[in-house]
């Protein structure tokens, strides 16, 4: 029994871990798979999200909608989202 439970827990997708507030909305535009035809990059496995969000928020980096979305999150909230995506397996 215990062995089976452990296997189940390991096999569960990363979604089972709590996503920080805001993070679940991202996949509306940022596809989880790189197979999707989109100019919008996938986020899983990336380590530069906090920096990008800071640049969007300050206006250093022009965005189409990300300049407006980034302003809805503080540095610490952004850091939590960035850490969550960085911990995911990179999109394929």
């Amino acid at each position, binding site marked *: 029994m215990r062995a089976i439970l452990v296997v189940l827990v390991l096999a569960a997708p990363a979604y089972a871990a709590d996503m920080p507030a*805001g993070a679940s909305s*991202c996949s509306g535009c940022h596809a989880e798979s790189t197979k999707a035809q989109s100019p919008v990059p996938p986020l899983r496995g990336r380590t530069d999200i906090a920096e990008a969000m800071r640049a969007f928020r300050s206006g250093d980096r022009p965005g*189409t909608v990300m300049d407006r979305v980034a302003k809805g*999150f503080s540095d610490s909230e952004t850091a939590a989202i960035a850490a969550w995506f960085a911990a995911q397996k990179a999109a394929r």
Partner: protein
Amino acid sequence: MKTTRRLFLGGATAALALPAHAQSAAKVVVVGGGFAGATAARFLRRENPKLHVTLVEPNATFIACPFSNEVLVGLRELSAQQFRYDALKREGIQIVQQAATAIDADTRTVTLSDKTVLSYDRLILAPGIDLDWKALPGYDEAAAQRMPHAWKAGEQTTLLRRQLEAMQDGGTVVISAPPNPFRCPPGPYERASLIAWYLKTKKPRSKLIVLDAKDQFSKQRLFTAAWKQLYPDNLEWVSLSQGGKVTSVDPSTNTFTTEFGAHKADVGNVIPPQRAGRIAELAGATDRTGWCPIDPVTFESRLHKNIHVVGDAAIAGAMPKSAFAANAQAKICAAAVAKLLRGETPAEPRPINTCYSLVAPDYGISIAGVYHPVNGLLADVEGAGGISPVDAPAQTRKAEADYAAAWFRTITGEVFG
């Protein structure tokens, strides 16, 4: 798992060992297979693969509304709007192709059109909108065959497209835009833009009049600036204060009557007032506005325990009734329901909305918002969100049109692919 237990403990003991509310046995029924419902079903299983998830949806094929305005003017075919539930089935979601006809919040059951009764631990209602056939004198289901609404994509989209195609050059198209709240706040104005583009390019002596029950609308500055630039001779918007509110229609003559006069159309498109899908009312989840009040953290109904409402039917405060919002809400609701079934407390969400509209084929505009719960409603996060710049160069407009198309591919992939 169950087999193992039975081998060890035997059937009767196993039933005692597994209380009815144990998460392995928890049943969630989702009513409605649009952007909200299909997302909820899928993400419930990702949150907890052991949940029994049943999706109740009478149609085998979903027809998406976003981009259906392109279909109206021949820039896209309806087939590009159609999605099936095969991927959801493969993930272990039970798809029941029936309509829900009754919901009993006390016994926690859903009755289907074939009289089957489904029981649930938690119910997620995602019924979308119903057109309010009693709100506009003269406009009922029969009238919609002559004056299409095309506000639920499908046959109505095709009907309005055929009427536009059949219209002689020099004709008049009239759109009536509804009062708030309604599905897709910028939708009537994107439609007006694309029909004006069609008239300008195909039938340049024709004219489009938008009769509006409002003085303000979504992305107004962007639309107004684009109309002035692109369609000065083809498009006229009549606001509420200019007498734009339609008080009745006559389908026998294609006439729109306002407080100030009457407009006879060659093609008449009535976007009528709306309310939450009927099953929400039958469940007792609607208030006197016709929409569903919800808790902004869990999307649980304020009127019935264990019933959650997501998407267009919900009163989501500042969040608009958009496909993006429906998808974002459903992901939050699925996570909350999985937590509640484990006896945990969901954290405060921070949903986002992004919405693009096309003003012409290579001319896109957008609005975005970030929301958080304030005093029991989802409110705008101050300083975030807003519309794209009014004075943006053509390459930005082209980029926004490309982003719009990419968004549709991505979100339909997440929900149905």
